[in-house]
């Protein structure tokens, strides 16, 4: 059925994910909430357990063997992330708690030093709250203006309006998602980046929903900042990445203070370490490094290109079967999408739908998906969202469709 994988390959991939053998309410789990948190293959779980069992120790400056080993795992994954993203050097990779913290870091360092009361920041209308609220909080301190890049009816961003906003405001920064978590739209961030640069703006790309699903090269995008979370790419929770151009990081003041981010500390004055460590205060979540190594192994072995291609097949199938259901309306119909289908049902609250699907063993996300302005744009309080993974099957999507039809009978 798939042109990317054989049945046997799909079965083999599914076999790596222990959670897929779970039953929920007596039915086999259909996990379609991958955009919220992806699942982990055994190799990732085992890598972290093995690390805890054999190598656990606090990293950096420890002379003893365990600390050396842990440091090598931790700093080693920085190299791998750097090459995954096509970064110029490993020092461009800053670890944070997640995409959210990564974006807050940019706001509180680059933003706090470069934005002025008369600055303008352009923010996409579909952004996850993680890429809007940090700018609002900073704006309440500094006083700059936030202008919205409006979305069109297909949940793409209005590129003409974007260019007009650049012309009119000469913004200092454009903060935009690569892929919409609410609707799946892939935005043309490379084009948006060159337009931003042509108008003297920097561009921050929220890659939380792109890096796990397609090859993302920061040089090809030519962006300035990129953020994402490991837990959405078959990796550990509590770990995220900020990539930023070296020149920018070098000029950014520290944010959080503590261990590891300093050079010399005294009561009379403190100097700070080089990037990226300047931005990594405190004991890092070093066990996660072992997990991220294994997650990257998994993605490399499967191939991110094949992950993407497979998810495109699933997306097409989902649009077909869900799109055929009367009373179901898909939000997000732009041509370029990742594996996310968001929909509403006539006369049925998304919460009720989610509850019913759950009883059928089908895990979807319902509600505003941390993108309330995007919901408002489409005049809804929330949607029902199915989001796919490389292990998702057409049968699972069919079960979702059948579940929707069944719940419509009861609820509509």
């Amino acid at each position, binding site marked *: 059925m798939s042109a990317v994988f054989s049945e046997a390959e799909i079965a083999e991939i599914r076999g790596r994910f222990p959670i897929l053998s779970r039953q929920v309410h007596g039915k086999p789990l259909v996990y379609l909430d991958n955009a919220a948190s992806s699942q982990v293959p055994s190799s990732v779980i085992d890598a972290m357990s093995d690390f805890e069992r054999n190598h656990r120790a606090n990293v950096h400056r420890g002379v003893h063997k365990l600390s050396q080993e842990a440091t090598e795992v931790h700093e080693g994954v920085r190299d791998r992330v750097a090459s995954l993203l096509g970064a110029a050097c490993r020092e461009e990779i800053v670890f944070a708690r997640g995409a959210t913290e990564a974006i807050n870091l940019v706001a509180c360092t680059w933003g706090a030093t470069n934005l002025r009361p008369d600055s303008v920041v352009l923010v996409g209308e579909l952004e996850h709250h993680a890429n809007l609220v940090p700018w609002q909080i900073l704006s309440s301190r500094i006083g700059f203006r936030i202008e919205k890049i409006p979305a069109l009816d297909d949940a793409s961003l209005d590129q003409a309006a974007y260019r007009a906003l650049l012309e009119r405001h000469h913004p200092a920064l454009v903060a935009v998602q690569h892929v919409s978590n609410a609707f799946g739209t892939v935005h043309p961030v490379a084009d948006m980046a060159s337009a931003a640069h042509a108008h003297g703006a920097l561009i921050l790309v929220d890659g939380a929903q792109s890096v796990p699903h397609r090859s993302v090269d920061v040089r090809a995008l030519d962006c300035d900042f990129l953020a994402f979370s490991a837990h959405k790419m078959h990796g550990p929770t509590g770990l995220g990445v900020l990539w930023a151009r070296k020149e920018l990081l070098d000029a950014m003041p520290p944010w959080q203070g503590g261990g590891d981010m300093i050079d010399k500390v005294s009561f009379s004055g403190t100097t700070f370490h080089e990037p990226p460590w300047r931005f990594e205060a405190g004991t890092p979540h070093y066990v996660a490094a072992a997990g991220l190594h294994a997650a990257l192994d998994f993605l490399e072995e499967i191939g991110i290109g094949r992950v993407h291609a497979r998810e495109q097949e699933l997306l097409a199938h989902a649009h077909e079967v869900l799109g055929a259901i009367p009373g179901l309306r898909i939000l997000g119909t732009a041509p370029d999408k990742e594996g996310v289908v968001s929909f509403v049902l006539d006369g049925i*609250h998304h919460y009720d739908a989610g509850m019913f699907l759950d009883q059928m063993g089908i895990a979807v996300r319902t509600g505003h998906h941390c993108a309330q302005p995007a919901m408002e744009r489409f005049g809804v309080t929330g949607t029902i969202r199915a989001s796919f993974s490389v292990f998702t099957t057409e049968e699972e999507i069919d079960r979702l469709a059948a579940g929707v039809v069944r719940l419509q009978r009861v609820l509509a």
Partner: protein
Amino acid sequence: MTAIDTISQREAEVVEEFALFDEWLDKYEHIIELGKSLSGVDPEFRTDHWKVKGCQSQVWLQPGTEGDLVVFKADSDAAITKGLVALMVRVLSGQPAEAIARAPLGFLESIGLREHLSPTRANGLASMVKQMKLYAAAMSGRGNEGGQDG
């Protein structure tokens, strides 16, 4: 003075009623039916101020008194939530404030809906019950002064 039918009598009634259903689908259909009979809140209570926090679906709660008794009206935009809300109103409305504040509400457990009372539940039933008990406590604190705008 005690109510003719106590909270625990009402709970027992609900438990008996739900004993008919083996299937989750039947149970939820019944809950949804119950919701349909809910009278809803008065228009001036359908505002943010009277909304219960922490629900993915919206819930409005309108407290009031009738003589010595606390009465509730409620509404929700989601059918299951509305049914659950109707159940709570049916069990608690028209009872003395002290009884409401103290009610252990074990019936949700008996009918297999205990999970809905979890504070982590997205429907926010737990928040609603907390809110109902707070209103009741406030009313009992005020004795017989009555008044609709608790």
